[in-house]
């Protein structure tokens, strides 16, 4: 018989990554249908009420209290509640040294601090960021769900003080060759980049590295920075800083389409930049491109890397790419084994910007795609858990990451989804991204390899051939190793490309070929 129970542990604070692992382990126990281990913030309590847990039972929990919510077989739920302590034993942190009891304590121990890295829950993040700015310290703000008015206030305060707020919702920065957040091991070099998208910055910097060049600084600004509400405050600060930086020869700007007013503001600033500039406003329709821009505007991440390398004046080989003949042979080898009904693409992405770029590739070829994060002209999918026709899903979006880890850290959700897509007889190609670097899964390709093998076996047993096309965003210096991860994917049966654009283009060609064959 099914039952729901709530257990509250007063004054026990744990960070979200640890609690996600607890949630996952509890969910995997026999007889458990639903489990969540979360702090008792108002937002988390609202989610639990939506999941069907009683509001009254949650009422005594405050933000400093741990809530464990369980649903399933009565005996299984009871057994877990009775032994809850065993499930919340926290592993001793590795090598992070003694902790400071407060921000002020940290500052007194390390008076030269110049960056606050903040990833506390969004509702508390602005207070901590204000405290850092008040001490003259710039902020890398990973937290999301920070109110817009707080973001504007923080960024204004930072601008006035000659500081920067990278974020909120900033995943990646490279400061003087040092990766902050989800970043890759990228050599230093002449190219400075400002990006409002974390995976956009990662893909850009990895391709620059793979081409043999390097990045002076990669400054993240957060997903809303170029909205008209925020007005690009951090982007402008970052452009100023890169213009002044003696180690930067070229300035690159990457974002999704900015707000109309902000786009003009950024273009005017970049027109006045004393260094060569190149920009990519991913997803911006060609007819919306600003005509007054006196710098090159690229439409893909690969193009902006190529343009930036050219402007830096270095003679470089570029990153690996197949010739047109090789691609043709590869394409033919894939499609000739497909069954008559196979025609659709399913893309399952860890990187939101990579999902966006893939949609752009499809849009440019006239292929209509459903997505949970649709590009202009694409269709909003009704249920993000169920693909229809051609579907590209950003699995790092909020609807997949509330109470569960981001797919860059944990592949569980992508593995399940790969299995589901393989059951659909109309699917011809599965498109994946694999992201390496600091803070990502220690074995990102290995996490997916068995699922890829199983998907190919399932389809082969049913007389079909499933193409699995992947790109790996990483460098040879990343903790996971680029070559090793690529090899794991190849051994599992995936076709591996050096960039999301290459992988998306190949997957597009499969879809176009199938459309042609099937009329």
């Amino acid at each position, binding site marked *: 018989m099914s039952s729901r129970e709530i257990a509250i542990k007063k004054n026990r*604070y744990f*960070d*979200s*990554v640890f609690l996600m692992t607890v949630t996952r382990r509890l969910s995997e126990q026999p007889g458990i249908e639903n489990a969540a281990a979360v*702090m008792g913030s108002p937002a988390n309590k609202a989610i639990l009420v939506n999941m069907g847990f009683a509001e009254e039972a949650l009422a005594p929990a405050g*933000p*400093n209290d741990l809530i464990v919510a369980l649903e399933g077989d009565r005996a299984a739920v009871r057994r877990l509640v009775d032994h809850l302590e065993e499930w919340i034993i926290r592993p001793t*942190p*590795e*090598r*992070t*040294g003694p*902790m*400071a*009891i*407060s921000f002020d*304590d*940290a*500052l007194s*121990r*390390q008076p*030269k*601090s*110049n*960056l*606050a*890295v*903040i*990833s*506390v*829950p969004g509702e*508390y993040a602005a*207070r*901590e960021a204000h*405290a*850092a700015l008040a001490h*003259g*310290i*710039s902020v890398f703000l*990973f*937290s999301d769900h920070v109110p817009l008015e707080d973001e504007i206030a923080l960024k204004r305060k930072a601008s006035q*003080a*000659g*500081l*920067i707020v990278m974020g909120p919702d900033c995943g990646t920065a490279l*400061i*003087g*060759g*040092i*990766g*902050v*957040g989800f970043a890759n091991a990228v050599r230093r070099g002449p190219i400075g980049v400002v990006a409002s998208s974390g995976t956009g910055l990662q893909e850009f910097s990895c391709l620059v590295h793979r081409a043999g060049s390097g990045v002076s*600084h990669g400054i993240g600004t957060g997903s809303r920075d170029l909205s008209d509400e925020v007005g690009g405050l951090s982007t402008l*600060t970052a452009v100023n*800083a890169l213009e*002044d*930086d003696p180690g930067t020869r070229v300035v690159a700007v990457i974002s999704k389409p900015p707000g109309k007013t902000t786009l003009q503001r950024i273009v005017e600033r970049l027109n006045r930049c004393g260094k060569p500039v190149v920009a990519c406003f991913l997803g911006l329709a060609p007819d919306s491109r600003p005509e007054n821009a006196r710098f090159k505007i690229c439409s893909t991440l690969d193009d902006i890397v190529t343009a930036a390398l050219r402007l830096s004046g270095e003679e470089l080989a570029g990153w690996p790419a197949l010739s047109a003949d090789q691609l043709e042979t590869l394409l033919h080898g894939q499609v000739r084994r497909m069954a008559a009904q196979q025609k659709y693409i399913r893309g399952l992405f860890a990187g939101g910007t990579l999902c966006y770029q893939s949609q752009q590739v499809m849009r440019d070829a006239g292929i209509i795609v459903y997505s949970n994060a649709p590009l202009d002209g694409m269709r909003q999918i009704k249920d993000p858990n169920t693909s229809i026709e051609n579907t590209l899903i950003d699995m790092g979006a909020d609807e997949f990451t509330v109470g569960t880890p981001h797919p860059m850290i944990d592949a569980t959700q992508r593995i399940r989804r790969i299995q589901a897509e393989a059951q659909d007889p109309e699917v011809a190609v599965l498109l994946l991204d694999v992201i390496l670097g*600091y*803070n990502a899964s220690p074995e990102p390709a290995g996490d997916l390899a068995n699922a890829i093998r199983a998907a190919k076996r399932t389809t082969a047993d049913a007389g079909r051939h499933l193409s699995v096309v992947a790109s790996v965003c990483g460098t040879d210096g990343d*903790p996971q190793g680029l070559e090793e991860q690529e090899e794991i994917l190849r051994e599992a049966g995936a076709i591996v490309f050096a960039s999301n654009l290459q992988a998306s283009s190949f997957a597009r060609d499969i879809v176009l070929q199938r459309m042609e064959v099937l009329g």
Partner: protein
Amino acid sequence: MPTIRSLMEEGPIAINLGLQGFAKALQDQSRPVIQVDWSPPPPQDEEMQDILDELL
């Protein structure tokens, strides 16, 4: 007082509030970082906290 320029010249000297993995990744790159043992302020103290912030 540090500015964005000094951050870029000196590289990150960080104070980490939240996910400890972020501190560890900086340490793995041989950068100085101090982790704060952070927990949320009790909600009823919000007003008091503002007064304290003001005073301090």
